[in-house]
Every structure is written in structure tokens, then in C-alpha cells.
């Protein structure tokens, strides 16, 4: 078996420096946020108390970070051992996605110095879906770092610790499957509480199932997207064969999702809203077209053999899941009363700053740590 190796090369590349500039600007706005309050850098208001940071950094970011979850599900629950080489890079991006979502929460919540209240039994509210999400995400971030630890330990040649950790690893892998199942579905349940503020095109008792399915789909898509991109960028032969096979499975998952999605809207008698020609209706079709397109692209075996098709299909699925989440948390959300929201520039820059941190960490990790296997 081919072993994973660091890709090598200079870490401080042009991309790295560009990312660094964005991070510095974001830090300036963050300082403003902590000195003058959320209103100083965001367009959030009492009608739209949640904006870009929740919709992207937390709700979409963690779904993109579901690669580790999706691959673990495949390898350990469905016993597809041949996909194992994809697990380590997937776990790494998941680790970044979740850790940064946790950091983003810190920027977003108003009384961040009280966050430990969630862990105090006399304050924690078991009725609250948000409590479940918060605890699960916190715990899962920790689990991801533990799952990725063997890569560090290999780097540091700490083989004794590595054997010890390997022996206990099944506990963390099991947690790594359980926790995302719990909180990714709960991210859907969470918006049920928005009630009539959320358009009936999205408001349904099936939100938890739809969120869980899109999380798994986005997880696979993230793995395929990243592997094909990296193979192209670094001239690796890549894992095209298993990626093609994987994409074949994703087709069924996406088809299943679309059946549930449309059956739900139709059975609730709300499909008429999709033909109103307003923003919500347009977003509904864009969202579902982005799911449908990869289904067509990946249906044929020849398409699944071409890295470019795999890459585009994965990109479309990531976008589709992202749009679905934005629709549920922002675009389909209308509190009425004349409230409006569009993210402010500093708000967008802070999100871009987080993505830049993720990119910089990613570059350092793949170049210095044994993450990907070479040809």
C-alpha cells in the first residue's frame, strides 16, 4: 500500500500571502466588533438577528466540513474499505471547517464570555435545539482533532503515543459518526422554531432529514472537489477511480434527496409558491437545479471517469447544499414588519478572513504533514 507523504514545497506562497492580507483586514474589523458591538460591523437587526456568520460560517461551513463524517460512514458503516485513503484528508478539512465554525460562533454571540454556561447543568436547557447543536459541534471539533492526531504523531515520530491512540481510536471514530448525525439534523430542526417567518417552501417537519441528507451529500462533494482540485494543482495522479465510484453512489443519494424534497413541498400543498416568480421562488429553483445538474452529469459511467466532470459535479453539489442552507436561514426567512438584511462589507470580510485562515492552515498541513498519498 502507498503511504501518505507531505507534498513538500514552500508554504509561504503567493496564495498564502494573499490570504494573510485578508486575515489582517478581518482582524481590524474584528477589533471593531469587540470594542463597539455587533452593530458596528454587521447589518444584523432585530428582524434578522442571524446573518452571514451563522448561515455561512456555522451552518454551511460545518456541512462542507462533513467530508470526514461522510467518509467514515462509508468506510465503517457500509464497509467500503477501498475508500480508506480518502479518510485522512477528509478528516483534516472537517477539522478546519468545524474548528473555524466554533471560532465564528465566538464572534457572533453577543455575550461570548458566558459561553461556558452551555456546559453548566443548571443553565443548559434540554428543550433547546441550539443547545444540542452547540454541545455536539464543540465535542465533534475535539473528536476531529483526536482523529487527526496520528498524522501529527507520525510527523513528530511519537510512535508510542500513536499505538496507544490507535487502540482507542474506534471510540472516536464511532463518536465521529454519531455526533454529526445528531447536530447536522438538528441544524434543520433549529429553523422549525422560526415558524411562519420561514417560507413554506422550506418550513417543514422534515427539515432535520433534509439537513442530514444534504450534509452527507456535501461531505462527499467536498472530498471529491478537494481531491480532484489538488490532483490537478500538484500533478498527482489522484484517486480518480475511487472518486468515480464514490460519485456513482452520490447519484443515488442526491436522487433520494430530491424525491424527499419535492414530495414534501407537494404534499404540503405549497408547490404553488415556487411559481410566484419572487426571490424565494427563484432561489427554490436555483437550489434544486444545482442538485439536479450533477445528477445528469454523473448518471453516465463515462462522465464519472473524467476528473473535470467529477470536479464540476462536486462543485455544483457544494453550491446546491450551500444555497439550500442560505435559503433556510436567510433568504426564505422573512420576519415581515419591513425588516431587511444584506451582509455589510466588514461582515463579509470577517467571513473571508476565516476562509483564508482555513486555506493557510490547509496549505501548511498538506505540505508539511503526511496527509495525501502519492502515486
Amino acid at each position, binding site marked *: 500500500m502507498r503511504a501518505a507523504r507531505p507534498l513538500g514545497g514552500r508554504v509561504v506562497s503567493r496564495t498564502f500571502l494573499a490570504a494573510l492580507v485578508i486575515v489582517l483586514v478581518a482582524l481590524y474589523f474584528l477589533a471593531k466588533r469587540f470594542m463597539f458591538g455587533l452593530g458596528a460591523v454587521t447589518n444584523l437587526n432585530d428582524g434578522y438577528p442571524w446573518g452571514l456568520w451563522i448561515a455561512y460560517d456555522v451552518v454551511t461551513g460545518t456541512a462542507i466540513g462533513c467530508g470526514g463524517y461522510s467518509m467514515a460512514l462509508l468506510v465503517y458503516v457500509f464497509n467500503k474499505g477501498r475508500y480508506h485513503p480518502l479518510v485522512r484528508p477528509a478528516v483534516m478539512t472537517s477539522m478546519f471547517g468545524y474548528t473555524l465554525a466554533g471560532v465564528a460562533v465566538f464572534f457572533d454571540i453577543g455575550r461570548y464570555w458566558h459561553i461556558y454556561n452551555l456546559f453548566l447543568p443548571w443553565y*443548559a436547557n434540554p428543550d433547546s435545539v441550539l443547545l444540542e447543536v452547540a454541545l455536539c459541534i464543540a465535542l465533534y471539533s475535539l473528536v476531529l482533532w483526536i482523529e487527526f492526531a496520528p498524522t501529527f504523531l507520525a510527523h513528530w515520530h511519537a510512535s508510542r503515543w500513536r499505538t496507544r491512540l490507535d487502540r482507542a481510536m474506534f471510540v472516536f471514530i464511532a463518536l465521529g459518526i*454519531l455526533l454529526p448525525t445528531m447536530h447536522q439534523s438538528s441544524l434543520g430542526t433549529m429553523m422549525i422554531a422560526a415558524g411562519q417567518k420561514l417560507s413554506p417552501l422550506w418550513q417543514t417537519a422534515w427539515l432535520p432529514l433534509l439537513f442530514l441528507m444534504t450534509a452527507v451529500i456535501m461531505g462527499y462533494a467536498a472530498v471529491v472537489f478537494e481531491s480532484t482540485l489538488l490532483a490537478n494543482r500538484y500533478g498527482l495522479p489522484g484517486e480518480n477511480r475511487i472518486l468515480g465510484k464514490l460519485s456513482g453512489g452520490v447519484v443515488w443519494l442526491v436522487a433520494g434527496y430530491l424525491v424527499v424534497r419535492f414530495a414534501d413541498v407537494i404534499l404540503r400543498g405549497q408547490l404553488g409558491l415556487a411559481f410566484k416568480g419572487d426571490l424565494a421562488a427563484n432561489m427554490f429553483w436555483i437550489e434544486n437545479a444545482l442538485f439536479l445538474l450533477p445528477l445528469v452529469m454523473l448518471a453516465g459511467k463515462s462522465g464519472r471517469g473524467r476528473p473535470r466532470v467529477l470536479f464540476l459535479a462536486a462543485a455544483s453539489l457544494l453550491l446546491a447544499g450551500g444555497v439550500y442552507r442560505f435559503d433556510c436561514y436567510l433568504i426564505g426567512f422573512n420576519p415581515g414588519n419591513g425588516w431587511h438584511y444584506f451582509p455589510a462589507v466588514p461582515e463579509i470580510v470577517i467571513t473571508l478572513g476565516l476562509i483564508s485562515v482555513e486555506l493557510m492552515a490547509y496549505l501548511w498541513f498538506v505540505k508539511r504533514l503526511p496527509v495525501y498519498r502519492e502515486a
Partner: protein
Amino acid sequence: MQIKRRDFLKTVAGGAALAAAPSITMASDAVRRLPGAVGILYDSTLCIGCQVCTVACKEANNMPPEFSGNQRRWDNPVDLSARTLSIIKEYESGNRHHKDHAQDGYAFVKRQCMHCVDPPCTTACPASALTKDPQNGMVTYNKDACIGCRYCEVACPFEIPKFQWDRPFPQIVKCQLCAHLLAKGRIPACCHQCPTGASLFGPVAGLLAEARRRQQMTAGKTYDFPLSSLASGKTRTHRAGKYIPHIYGEHENGGTQVLYLAGVSFDKLGLPDLPERPYTALARSIQHTLYRGLVAPIVVFGGLMVLVARRTKDKE
């Protein structure tokens, strides 16, 4: 007409959800009114829009003034905010000649926390910062518990909790039914100061009975209306208005402890048309079905551990 159709669709939607997900939408989770519940009956037909309640509320709760327009002399908020916990708003139509008329008329409405029987905010709050008093049912806020996540704002269908966006150490702000005055045996400042009895404090059971009494009144005839609180013993004599046959808050969102009577339909007054079961109750039953006692997660966790251990061994 359009609203009617939407209501119909909503009912259909609710019915379909019930039929589709029977295991998670059991109606048995309906929360009942507390026997000791206290609240406010606001009668739009008695209100003269003087805003004394708004001012009294600011004084009683030490809230800063809020200016609108260019003037900076007096407090004149236009809506609820992190500085204004209670306010009188107005519905206007046409030439606004007739009070409590939908056409060419006007009507007042008091907005404040409804102190729901099953409050979405207390269900949503992850840190129990918003809680419902187990005796009198008032919904109060504890800043020492709050993490500032604003899920209460997302969940509240009345858009009551407000956030201090302009502060580095912000709080959630909302009407707490003057809990600090109730503790001293007094009544909420808005009701205490209301000159006409439009805002009336009392036990919810008594307020509901009073509301039903008013609905039986003949419009135009004079009657005695209690002032400040049901127990005050003071009354004012008014001509009865023409009430629409609906007590808002009796059933909306599972019932509220602030109740409304009005001469125009409540949607015109900006009060949302809500189903009897709060959406948060559905979210809560999904959550409890899946996670009660953490039994299901622990069983799944055990199964996963066995599975993963076996797979890992196979590989070796």
C-alpha cells in the same frame, strides 16, 4: 382574501405534516395555562393613544429615551426596540375619521411581550436565560445566563426580544411584566398609569372572563370597566365599542397571558395570525423523541463502536 387563502394552505400544511410524521407530532405536548397566571387585558376600543403607558414603562424599567425624526427633546419611539419595552401603535385607514373602524378609521394597539403559555423563547434559549415563572407565568430574562445567541429573536413570532446591537457587552431586552413591581405586591406600570382601563392587570382567568363579558356588551350602551387591575375596585364608565368576536391570545401560539380585544381585525393591528400549537413545540417534540434520556444516542454509539472495532480488526 389573500390571507384567507394562506391560512387555508397553512392548515393543509399542518394537516399534511401531522399525517406524514405521526410519531413526532403528538398533540399531547400542549402546555396548559398556569392556575396562578397573571397578565394584561388590552382593550383597543378603550385606548386613547396617550402613550402614558409607554412613559410609565420607561420610568419603571429605567429605559433610556428614544428619538425619531430630527427632534432630540422628548421620547418618541416608533416601535419596540432595545430601549422601548412597551408602545402604543396605530392602525390608520383612509381619512381616519372613525375610531375602531377598518375603513376611514383608526385604532390603537399596545405592543409588548405576550408572556406566552408555552413561550417559544424559553424553549429556544440554550442557556435558560429566558424562563417562565412556574407560579404566575411571567417570562423574565437573566443576563447572567444569556450567551447573546439571539435564537429567542428568531423563535418569537411576536418579535419581542430585542438585542443591544450598539454595545460591546450587550443584553437581550424585553418586557418582564414589571416582575420587580409584582415582587413588591404592585402591578405593571403600564396598567397602573392607564387612565381609561385599556390596559388592565389581573389573573388571566379573571381577564378572560372580563373579556367575554365585554364581548356580550351592546355597542353604544354604557357599562362600568375596571381600571388598572381587576382587584383595584376602581371603575370607569364608557360606552361599549363594537368588538370583533375574537379574543386574541386565547388560543394563538398556544395561548398568551396578554390578551386583546379590538374593534378591527387583529391582522390590521399587526398581530400575527398564529396556529394554536407553537412551532417550537414541534421542534421540542422532535428533539425529545430523538434524545430523551440520551437513550437512542447511547444505543447508536454502542452499535457504532462494535461496528468500527470489527471493521478495524478486519483491515488488520
